[in-house]
């Protein structure tokens, strides 16, 4: 059995019929071919699959595509506008907030949401705000610096 879903992804209207059990992350990666959203775990710990759903950071491996019906989603592919990196992306590059880059799409989008809620976060706010996103490479120090830098630029 398939259900219709209709949603906006990175500004484009998308309509598909999907299996009700299809995870949102697989819809994005495999149905739409937007492979920038990564999968790092099965249990909602790592946050690599984070996307913005109606402006809020959500873990797309913990949501069904049908649950996102009617929503507007931004994935990492939709963040840079007209070839210009978003200030959070720029700050991650400037401060070396990424190494292997696998957690980065989720980390960047979580940081976007964090700064939306709290435009002038302290380091403690940033560290607390990133608790749901794991990074095994950077030790977080430069990710915190990047979010701090992004806050200053935005």
């Amino acid at each position, binding site marked *: 059995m398939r259900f219709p879903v209709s949603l906006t992804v990175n500004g484009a209207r998308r309509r598909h019929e999907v*299996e009700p*059990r*299809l995870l949102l992350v*697989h819809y994005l*990666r*495999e149905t739409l*071919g*937007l*492979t*920038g*959203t*990564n*999968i*790092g*775990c*099965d*249990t909602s*710990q*790592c946050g*690599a699959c984070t996307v913005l759903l109606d402006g809020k950071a959500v873990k797309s491996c913990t949501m069904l595509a049908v649950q996102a019906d009617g929503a507007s989603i931004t*994935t*990492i*592919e939709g*963040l*840079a506008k007209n070839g210009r*990196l978003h200030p959070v*992306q720029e700050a*991650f*590059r*400037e401060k*070396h907030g*990424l*190494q*292997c*880059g*696998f*957690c*980065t*799409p989720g980390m*960047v989008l979580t940081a976007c949401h964090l700064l939306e809620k709290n435009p002038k976060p302290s*380091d*403690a706010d*940033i*560290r*607390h705000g*990133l*608790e749901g*996103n*794991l*990074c*095994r*490479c*950077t*030790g*977080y*120090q*430069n*990710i*915190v610096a990047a979010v701090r830098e992004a806050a200053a630029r935005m």
Partner: protein
Amino acid sequence: MASKVFGSSVKRKEDPRLLTGQAKFTDDFTLPHMAHLAVVRSPYAHARIKAIRTKKAAAMDGVLGVFTGKDMKDAGFGPIPCAWVVPGSNAKTPPYPPIALDVVRYVGNAVAIVVATDRYVARDAAEAVEVDYEPMPVVVDAKKATEKGKPQLHADVPSNLAFTWTVAGGDVDAAFRAADVVVSERIVNQRLIPNAMEARAALADYRSATGEVTLWVTSQNPHIVRFLLSLDTGIPEQKIRVIAPDMGGGFGSKIPHYPEDTMAIFASKQCGCPVKWTETRSENYRGTIHGRDHIQDVEMAAKKDGTITGIRATVWANMGAYLSTASTGIPTILHGLMLSGAYDIKNIKEVVHGVFTNTTPTDAYRGAGRPEATFMVERLVDLVAAKLKMDPVEIRKKNFIPPFTDGHAVATGITYDSGNYVGALDKALQMLDYKALRAKQAELRKKGEHIGVGFSTYAEICGLGPSAVAGAVGFGGGLWESAIVRFHPSGKVNVFVGIQPHGQGEETTFAQIVSSELGVPVEDVEVFHGDTGQTPMGWGSYGSRSTPVGSGALMGAIVKIRDKAKIVAAHLLEASVDDVEYADGKFAIKGAPSKAKTIQDIALMANVAWNYPKGLEPGLEASAFFDPSNFVYPFGAHAAVVRVDVETGEVRLERYVAVDDCGRVINPMIVEGQIHGGVVQGIGQALWEGAAYDDSGQLLTGSMMDYAVPKADAFPLFELAMTETPTKVNPLGVKGIGETGTIASTAAVYNAVMDALAPLGVTQIDMPLTPERVWRAVRDARR
């Protein structure tokens, strides 16, 4: 090296694709007509397979095939080879079939595979495969597994002893007889799960018409995987192309050649279509290698004045159920040879038993053997200091090898390249304001607050390594590196290397080297790696070797380019070659700097060859190989300051100071990033991380819900500094920095916690130092 590019924090070339979702990881590749593979895995740690019923699964819509170990064997797919067999250790390498044939030996052992047109259908069908097991007795503890009456995993391996290896130097027993003090300890260096954020994946595309296969795979060493695949798939090496695309971390866990690599190729061959396998995280916890897992009985001997005279140790290293690719080298060569640490310890003996157990195989995990050595030595040094009532700094300084630049031989038989251990420690002490810190600690102790300071003054072995040594210690390959530098007519450059960086930033640092040495802008250089169809043979990225060994090859190619360019320049300038000199990308006539040709001018002429020296080959491209004369030995001094809440057992890290020395630094930003990440992994081992099995061999920490990967909110800002002691082992004087943080930090934090608890009489708690364990230790001490 006049350019400022070398030694500056150039922003990474890797970042734009990674920041925009344009990177391509293995699971991001989709081929036309591609099918998905799912693995049926054993829920038992040790069992005989009585029957496998595949009919129901095979009949499901979309299922292309269900295969067992026998099917793979019948198709000529052999066991997964072990590529490092340490000589003189009576090593046993029982066959490791990619899919179990009769017996499963760990939870997660593959039993069957399913290929289907859809990822979800493949999983459904895997669930529908019915397997009858006859459970067998289980052993998970490496020391117990060697005892009488314990279950034996492999028929021809009595006492489960995969190998026994000994390192000895000096006269250890005499040193212990003559000692004024002896300390002894049972150290459990617990099992860890690597947790690269990207789990593994493999996509195989076999073409029956040509017999060629392309395998996209998460690998730190695609050329090694190709070599090993040629042995176990029966497909000749020249028909195998292994591509390791963008990779979400490895930390050693993507060194091995895994069963799933051959399963994907087998499935593609059988089903006549490309087949992709993508590991789930819970599969990763059971099916991808683990690290560490030593039980160490250790002793240290010293004189009254604090002179350390000997180390004696017996280690039981848990190898898991089979020997993974590089496994036997980890607790031996990369561990036992480093027991002198940063000190002049004349008498050392260690016996290492590699033991089979009903657990996931172990192999290299960041640091790989050296963290287990450093922790042992740094902990023992502190125990001796405590016994002699010496300051941990004083005893370290007393025993350090004095500064050296031309090699220093240690009792284990290796020769360190260069070091200045006291220099690094002094810098750390200055950053800590050590005297004031101790005064503050004493004051807080009076108030009942428990602050601790811990040190780890490490030296490590990396930059693997001289190929003759690799051969002598049983590694089944070379350890040299390769590079091709190719100038295009437009003066832009491609570099092709045998290493396979996956987060360490060599696409940037190698471009910096080319820029500095040949005078082209960094943005004009692109570095390619990770594709056996495109890049020269090389042995991959692990053992902090990519920069120290890979840059040696790159420099070889650069020198050849410069020499050839000089000949072309002399021709164009109508001068003799001896009259041409190179500086900053220009070849000029000595004494007449205005008469010059740029490297770009020369690249154009070399590529078109219109006006060209007679007899000289056209093109501006050079290839070089570099086999280092020795390993490199980075070192440093790390210090942790912790606060322990003795009522809750909680350990809070208040400060972390890291002084590291990796010789000359190409990109300080990248070096610092490597240290940050390494330090956090090592702290993770000290405080939170640990893989746990129950007695039936079930992995209790089976997902990220139960295994504590460190999070952002647990750390203060790390305070970093570098000292610079170049090595003579490679042309640029560089040492590896990928693993130092992990090697150093576990002991620093552990020693700090023990220092905090010293007034209570607590001297030992098994890692990780979770609140519960600390609380129990404090409670027991107070009783």
